[in-house]
């Protein structure tokens, strides 16, 4: 077991190096650089950046240096723990991500909890009452959830909330609490605002989980041990919960490893539409403006978490299924 773990960790390193190179290249791929993005942005708003500003910024950001040099600077900085400074905000990347991290994780957690709380009972119900009317309804609703583009759903729900309930679902706090320090009142305010974003973020996942739950449970219920138990007279409820549900949940548990990166990045598109102060919009902005360090470090973090998550998932699987260990 330990050997397997060590082997996996060792393999992680070249992957991470490759990821760092790739992510750096990807950020630099679009034509131009941060400066041209900034100038373009200013022009859009009717402002002209003076040539002086442009020249001084170009030197300051080191954008005249060749690509590999910039990569090297960034990598050595990262190994020392310095994630670099964002061009857009002019503040350290670690601060920017850090201050948004708590809220992001909160939304992700809420959405996962919401998602599983809905999906598991509904999935079980659908499996037991297969082909019933409600089963079709749930299946249909579930499918709708995964087929609507998320940004579209976000916009519709955002507008619906305003039109019918007079709620503006923009941001996570009311303006008064946004600037106030943390307090119980602020926490309550957050709880009031968090449910719609969490719901939208989790919709696609919920639908998918319902289907997986239903499918796996159906598979299990058809198996012979279930029929045997039923013949022995075990009560329906006990029958359901003792084995089949636990086994059906397995595939979902094995995907827990990948939850890490999702929790950190949140759902980018939905956060952008709803204007949430999370890491998602930060990443999108960094990519659009080609903010080298912010985008690069962020992608590295996400990739790193994904790799770690994969290892964790594999570990869980290896622990539960000994055959894989001996591969």
């Amino acid at each position, binding site marked *: 077991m330990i050997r397997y773990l060590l082997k996996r960790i060792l*393999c992680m390193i*070249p*992957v991470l190096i*490759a*990821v760092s190179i*790739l*992510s750096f290249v*990807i*950020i630099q*791929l*679009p*034509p131009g650089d941060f400066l041209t993005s900034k100038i373009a942005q200013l022009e859009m708003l009717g402002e002209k950046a003076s040539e002086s500003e442009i020249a001084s910024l170009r030197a300051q950001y080191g954008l005249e240096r060749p690509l590999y040099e910039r990569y090297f600077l960034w990598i050595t900085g990262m190994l020392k723990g310095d994630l670099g400074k964002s061009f857009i905000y002019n503040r350290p990347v670690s601060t920017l991500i850090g201050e948004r991290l708590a809220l992001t994780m909160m939304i992700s957690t809420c959405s996962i909890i919401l998602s599983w709380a809905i999906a598991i009972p509904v999935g079980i119900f659908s499996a037991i009452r297969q082909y019933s009317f409600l089963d079709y309804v749930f299946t249909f609703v579930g*499918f*709708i959830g*995964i*087929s*609507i*583009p*998320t*940004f*579209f759903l976000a*916009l*519709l729900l955002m*507008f619906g909330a305003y*039109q019918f309930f007079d709620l503006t679902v923009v941001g996570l706090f009311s303006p008064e609490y946004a600037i106030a320090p943390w307090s119980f009142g602020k926490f309550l305010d957050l709880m009031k605002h968090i449910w719609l974003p969490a719901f939208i973020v989790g919709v696609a996942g919920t639908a998918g989980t319902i289907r997986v739950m239903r499918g796996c449970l159906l*598979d299990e219920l*058809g198996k012979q041990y279930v029929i045997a138990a039923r013949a022995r007279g075990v009560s329906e409820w006990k029958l359901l919960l003792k084995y089949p549900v636990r086994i059906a949940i397995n595939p979902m548990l094995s995907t827990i490893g990948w939850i890490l*990166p999702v929790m950190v*990045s949140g759902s*980018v*598109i939905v956060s952008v539409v709803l204007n949430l102060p999370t890491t998602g919009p930060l*990443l*999108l902005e960094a*990519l*659009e403006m080609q903010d080298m360090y912010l*985008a690069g470090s962020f*992608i590295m973090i*996400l*990739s790193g978490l*994904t*790799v770690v998550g*994969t290892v964790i998932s594999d570990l869980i699987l290896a622990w539960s299924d000994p055959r894989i260990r001996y591969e």
Partner: protein
Amino acid sequence: MWWKFKKHRLAVLSGVLLILLYLGAIFCEFVSPFSPFQRDATLINAPPQKVRFISNEGIHLRPFVYGVSGGLQDETWTRVYEEDRSRRIPIHFFVRGSSYKLCGLIPWDRHLFGTADGGILFLLGADHLGRDLLSRIIYGSRVSLSIGLVGVFLSMVIGCAMGGISGYFGGTVDNIIQRSIETLMSLPTLPLWMGLSAAVPTTWSPIKVYFGMVVILSILGWAGLARVVRGKIISLREEDFAMAARLAGAHEGRIIRKHLLPSFFSYLIVMLTLSVPGMILAETTLSYLGLGLRPPVISWGVMLQQAQNVQTVATYPWIMAPALFVVVVVLAFNFVGDGMRDAADPYH
């Protein structure tokens, strides 16, 4: 397997629907009543017209719509229209309309349905330049529906090749391929798409941009597929029939091609079918972010991007119609894929 598939009614229905939609996409010039560029400046943002059979003159066999009148309201700067009951515009089938080249090759001018003398027929309303939304959606389906298929096809080819080689040969080759797959899969999708799409030079012609987008979308697709293929190959490699083929002197490649792949062909088909919706949704997302395909190219993603604002939702909601089509197509593919999976599963 075909028998079992037919039992799943929803899947069959979806399959038929998809075939119809794809036919519509291929022959879009014929199916749509108008050209997607034809505009009527007096009918900007006109709402959909209701198709009727009964007028105050009685029942008609031929469906018709009423004319439309109205325009800009000075107070609210909104365009408001109402039915003009004095003008009855019958809908004809196989009617002569604007000329076109079917599939860009055959010149013709008959349309599946339309109006006889240039009457207004906006079954899904008109957009902000006064163009028929239904025609634009049908033309747009050509791009949006095909991107999914072509992208998935590309993923399949690359994925099977990589997975097959990796699973069959094992050892270092396997390791390298596996590591690169891992690398690719650990990059977060959104930045990957954004970076690559933004790198597609907008100076390319629409066709080139289209293929560029297909390549980008399939880049992540093949990695997942390769992994699955590899797993299957590994388990099948040791099966007896493979051993027998090897003993008979068959070439490695032949073994992969002729013996291993067909055994999980059905599984492959299911996986591919279920990947198409992902590609279609990805295309809409990228267009929403302003990457990839852009005006004047017509695709559902591009049309959705223009509909993606509160003003449309509140005032001219029919402009969101492409979303409906996206949902229907995605659902249809999912149902078909589910049906196939149920049919192919030997334990069912």
